[in-house]
């Protein structure tokens, strides 16, 4: 089979795609391709990765137009002999394939990402009793596996249109806490997600759910937040 023609974003925001020829290898992932370029063609290529096995989420990049974990994207599954690799969208660019994740995590803080313990929920032994089969716990389970890779944020059209929009991951985090009966900051959190940049800005394009490598549905979480904030408004809680 012919070598791969790989176009990689180089430089900052005003950079450009640079073409490289990369030999094919067995079970080759896109992360392998990027690593091969750095080790054999240009050691100045910057990119981010850590675990290489789909646990950390740090190697997310835009591959052929869609955000993906490059370590879990096999070249053979992309089809064709050409690959275009760019940094994650909707985030400031540091250099080459490295996006600045700060705005993404700042928004987790904005929605009240940290858990705040509610008083009086813990039992005598210091633990709260949460039934695994309960409805709210199952709602938490549906969104809790997010590892903060930023794929959904990069895929979101609403973030592109409204840079202040909190985005799928932060709102998904808020939804898991809203459903946590031990959480003591429900009102503050629902208020935080109710502004112009909050859950109601979502257009339900479902790109986040379509592309989430963990198979989560932030769209569903955001829909839940819309319901919860509407009910809280009617009840005069927020």
């Amino acid at each position, binding site marked *: 089979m012919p070598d791969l023609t790989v176009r990689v974003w180089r430089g900052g925001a005003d950079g450009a795609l640079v073409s490289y020829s990369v030999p094919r290898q067995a079970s080759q992932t896109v992360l392998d391709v990027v690593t091969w370029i750095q080790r054999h063609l240009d050691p100045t290529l910057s990119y981010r990765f850590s675990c290489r096995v789909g646990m950390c989420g740090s190697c997310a990049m835009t591959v052929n137009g869609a955000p993906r974990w490059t370590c879990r994207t096999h070249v053979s599954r992309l089809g064709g002999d050409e690959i275009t690799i760019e940094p994650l969208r909707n985030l400031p660019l540091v250099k080459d394939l490295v996006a600045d994740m700060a705005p993404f995590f700042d928004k987790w803080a904005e929605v009240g990402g940290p858990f705040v313990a509610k008083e009086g929920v813990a039992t005598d032994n210091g633990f709260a009793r949460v039934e695994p089969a309960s409805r709210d716990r199952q709602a938490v389970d549906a969104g809790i596996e997010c590892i903060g890779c930023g794929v959904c944020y990069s895929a979101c059209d*609403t973030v592109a*249109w*409204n840079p202040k929009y909190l985005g799928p991951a932060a709102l998904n985090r808020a939804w898991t806490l809203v459903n946590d009966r031990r959480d003591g900051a429900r009102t503050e959190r629902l208020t935080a997600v109710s502004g*112009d940049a909050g859950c*109601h*800005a979502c257009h339900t394009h479902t790109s986040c759910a379509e592309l989430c490598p963990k198979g989560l549905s932030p769209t569903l979480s955001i829909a839940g937040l*819309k319901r919860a*904030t*509407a009910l809280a*408004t*009617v009840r005069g809680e927020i």
Partner: protein
Amino acid sequence: MWIAQRASAAAMAVFVAVHLATMIYAVRGGLSAGEILGRTHGQVAWLLFYGLFVLAAAIHTPIGLRVVAREWLGWRGRSADLAASLAGAGLLVGGLRAIWGLYA
């Protein structure tokens, strides 16, 4: 605003369906515009129906236009809010005038 937009959308789902069904029925029956006007004059039920329809549209439209202005045109702030509100007010006034024409 989100609740207002969703509630007005739900109301309009009914209004639009009834409106379209009525239009199709009226046209198939071969009624002229004059004959339709003759039947709507003095009908409080039609006045209320289309009055609420216009009200729902006047609530729904400016909220949507404001979002379009913010996201597609990058037009934010009070000027965009005001422009969207004016569009809603225009719909309300124009719509109510038209309905009054049907009724009176």
